[in-house]
């Protein structure tokens, strides 16, 4: 069964406080997640269980590096990603591996990404025109033409505002983390 970010995080923090049962529950819940994570990113099957076990050991021995105030799955997949890269490096294979945010989306943990930043707070840092253009086209699902009509500006103006606004947001997010 699938566990949510909140559930995994609760087990993790309980484990950090010394609760062995919660720690065991966490590790058991992570096994299917890690198997599918590695299966998705490796060609052969034979090394997957090794990688799962190595990652479980890393999660256990490096658990002090998890910050209780941050998303758990981002930490989890950062560890798994490092184990995978290290494994491929040892076998001298090189493959591009997505960054942790992309992994979180692929593995169905977008909540851990979005939990980090409040959309409204982010948009409030942009100019009103850019914020409105992004809200209309990306959050409320309006077409560019509809957004242009409702804001009484030109369509190209909407497109430019969205483009510049997203670029500014991306820059800010990179600085933020």
């Amino acid at each position: 069964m699938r566990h949510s970010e909140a559930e995994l995080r609760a087990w993790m923090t309980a484990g950090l406080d010394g609760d062995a049962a919660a720690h065991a529950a966490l590790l058991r819940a992570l096994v299917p997640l890690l198997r599918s994570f590695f299966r998705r990113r490796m060609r052969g099957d034979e090394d997957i269980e090794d990688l799962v076990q190595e990652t479980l050991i890393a999660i256990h021995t490096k658990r002090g590096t998890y910050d209780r105030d941050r998303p758990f799955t981002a930490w989890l997949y950062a560890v798994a990603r490092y184990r995978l890269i290290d494994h491929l490096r040892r076998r001298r294979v090189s493959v591009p591996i997505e960054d942790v945010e992309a992994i979180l989306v692929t593995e169905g943990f977008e909540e851990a990404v979005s939990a980090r930043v409040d959309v409204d707070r982010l948009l409030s840092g942009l100019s009103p025109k850019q914020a409105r253009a992004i809200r209309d086209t990306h959050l409320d699902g309006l077409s560019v033409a509809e957004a242009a009509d409702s804001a009484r500006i030109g369509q190209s103006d909407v497109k430019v505002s969205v483009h510049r606004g997203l670029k500014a947001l991306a820059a800010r997010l990179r600085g933020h983390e």
Partner: protein
Amino acid sequence: MMAPGDAERGTDRLIAALAADVPPIARRYIGRRIALGIAGGGVVSIGLVFALFGARPDFPQAMYGFSFWMKWAYTISLGLIAVAATVRLARPTGGSLRMFWPLALPILLLAALAIEEMARTPMRDWLSMWLGGSWNRCPWRVLLLAVPIFLGLLWAFRKLAPTDLRAAGAAAGLAAGAWAATIYCLHCDEFAAVFVLTWYTLGIVLAAALGALLGPRVLRW
């Protein structure tokens, strides 16, 4: 090769073994561990300063002077920024190289002070101000004193999880260099800001470069 069923049973056994040992973890674990590593190495470096170079002869009085505190303010602020960056890079989620930007502040402040000092000094004395009496020894000594602190940090990193090993190595080297420079102030009686800006910084940069060079090898886990 094991059959998949065996491997999966192995995973269950592994989890049982890991769950048998779950000590509680203190909050701010990374920071504590890094502070402990630096302190352990720092004690060795302090011993080295006294054993190899000796305390500066005017040590107690020097603590009332401006230049002593100018040097400490510089090296300690670099040390604190480097530790903050090291803590961030010790997490698997890492951080960006922008964390190193705050280093510009103490460097620029010291540069402003150096310019102000030189403006008050006749030009014929600039060279002796810049080279002091120990320019050719200072960077190497800072680098030497950084070694025990770097080793202390390597110990700290054994329980930590850096994923950008080069950046983490550079941050650890920078921290080791900055705290080594702080300790070297116990011996060094140079007083010009431009001296500190050049030769102390050079020693710290050497330590950071060495850390970046070694990071991918020594910080692997």
